[in-house]
């Protein structure tokens, strides 16, 4: 395994990491209103929220990415492939994140909200200072899991012409006739990236320990 191949693959890994990170952040941002809608009492909002979650969790990511890739130019939106990839990944992960957020929010013990009401906190204060912080901590493991899933799913954007890790490995394996080496190396790089995310998540959980070790 020559060094220059490793460099190229590492470059691909960098692209993978950036695309994934952007997708996670945007996905979370999109997930918040979707989750709020799915929790709303308004029937229309509720249905819209549930439909979004259902669609983006029910259609394979590959199909979603290809659909976006061909659809956008059709409605005169011309994005570079990488941007399309990030959008596609973000829209998909938003559905899973929204479901996680919804679950976390619903799992905040009602007694905690009652106690807040009894000392006089208003609805907005309860939401901001009691429900959201507790829900976030509850959802953290799921968000970290989802981040790992996005990283792995990002391999599919190779199909829509993005030069991330998988595409790089593909190119190198065809040009060097060493698919075993290249794909194994790529696999190891994915593992490394995933372990970093897991470690980061653990660190974040420790930081929000609230007295537990």
């Amino acid at each position: 395994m020559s060094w220059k191949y490793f460099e190229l693959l590492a470059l691909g890994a960098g692209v993978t990491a950036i695309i994934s990170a952007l997708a996670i952040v945007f996905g979370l941002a999109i997930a918040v209103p979707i989750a709020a809608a799915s929790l709303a009492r308004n029937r229309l909002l509720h249905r819209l929220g549930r439909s979004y979650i259902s669609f983006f969790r029910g259609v394979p990511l590959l199909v979603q990415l290809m659909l976006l890739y061909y659809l956008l130019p059709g409605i005169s939106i011309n994005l570079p492939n990488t941007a399309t990839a990030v959008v596609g990944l973000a829209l998909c992960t938003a559905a899973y994140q929204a479901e996680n957020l919804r679950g976390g929010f619903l799992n905040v013990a009602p007694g905690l909200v009652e106690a807040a009401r009894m000392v006089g906190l208003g609805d907005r204060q309860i939401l901001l200072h009691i429900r959201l912080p507790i829900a976030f901590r509850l959802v953290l493991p799921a968000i970290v899991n989802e981040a790992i899933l996005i990283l792995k799913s990002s391999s599919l954007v190779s199909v829509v012409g993005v030069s991330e890790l998988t595409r790089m490995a593909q190119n190198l394996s065809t040009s060097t006739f060493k698919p075993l080496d290249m794909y194994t190396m790529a696999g190891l790089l994915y593992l490394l990236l995933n372990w970093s995310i897991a470690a980061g998540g653990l660190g974040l959980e420790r930081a929000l320990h609230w007295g537990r070790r």
Partner: protein
Amino acid sequence: MTDLTGRAAGPEVGSVALRIEGLSKTFGEHTVLKNVDLAVRHGVVTCLLGPSGSGKSTLLRCMAFLEEHDAGIITVYGEPLGFAPKPDGGRQRLPNAQVARVRRAIGMVFQQFNLWPHMTALGNVSEALKRVRGLSRREAEARAMSVLRRVDLADRAYHYPSQLSGGQQQRVAIARALAMEPRIMLFDEPTSSLDPELTGEVLSVMRHLAQEGMTMVVVTHEIGFAAQVASDVAFLDKGEILLRGLAKEIFAKPWHPRLADFLETYLDRGAAVLV
């Protein structure tokens, strides 16, 4: 407008602090409370006793307006809570802001403590002081500290609930409610979730509060506590108040057969000998 948070020139001991008239509450098919009347006197401890399912916790939660009563009127120091009587005999649902205002006079302690896990003991006690009273962080924490001293937990102020025992958590919960200077304190089975060795520290705090003249309504299974500390007692069974009156009279001669049964069961379980 009545000042619901001051205590300086307050009502006389014995006058009515909280009055319940004709209260009913139904959950789906099940009527939990039927036409309940109760007058909670100011400055004394009222205990609500009864077997499981008698409705005593629901009655307490109605007093806090955590459950909306389906019929009847609750007044707190003269002010209606949640629903006001209409001249034609019906009820008018009052706006939430009004409910919140009347609720300022009430503090509540829950069976499950309900301390917010992401805040320290000091954080829990000072939160409402900061957000509702608008005190600065320093001022709020100073006051919170003094209340924590009253429940003997100043040394654990920076601990998180997960680092406190059940008894300590409940005492912090009491401090949290006290910090807002309520005129009435409601206790919903405050020791039922505690290991037996830990109930003592909580009951002791409650006893001190009573001695200081706090108006308290306590739902409890601790008959010994009720017999020693309560002035008034109401015994509920199946959603109705079967007996009400002065504690010393009721415990001395528990004439109602249901009450006699109830006391026997609880005395069998090793409750303190009655005075």
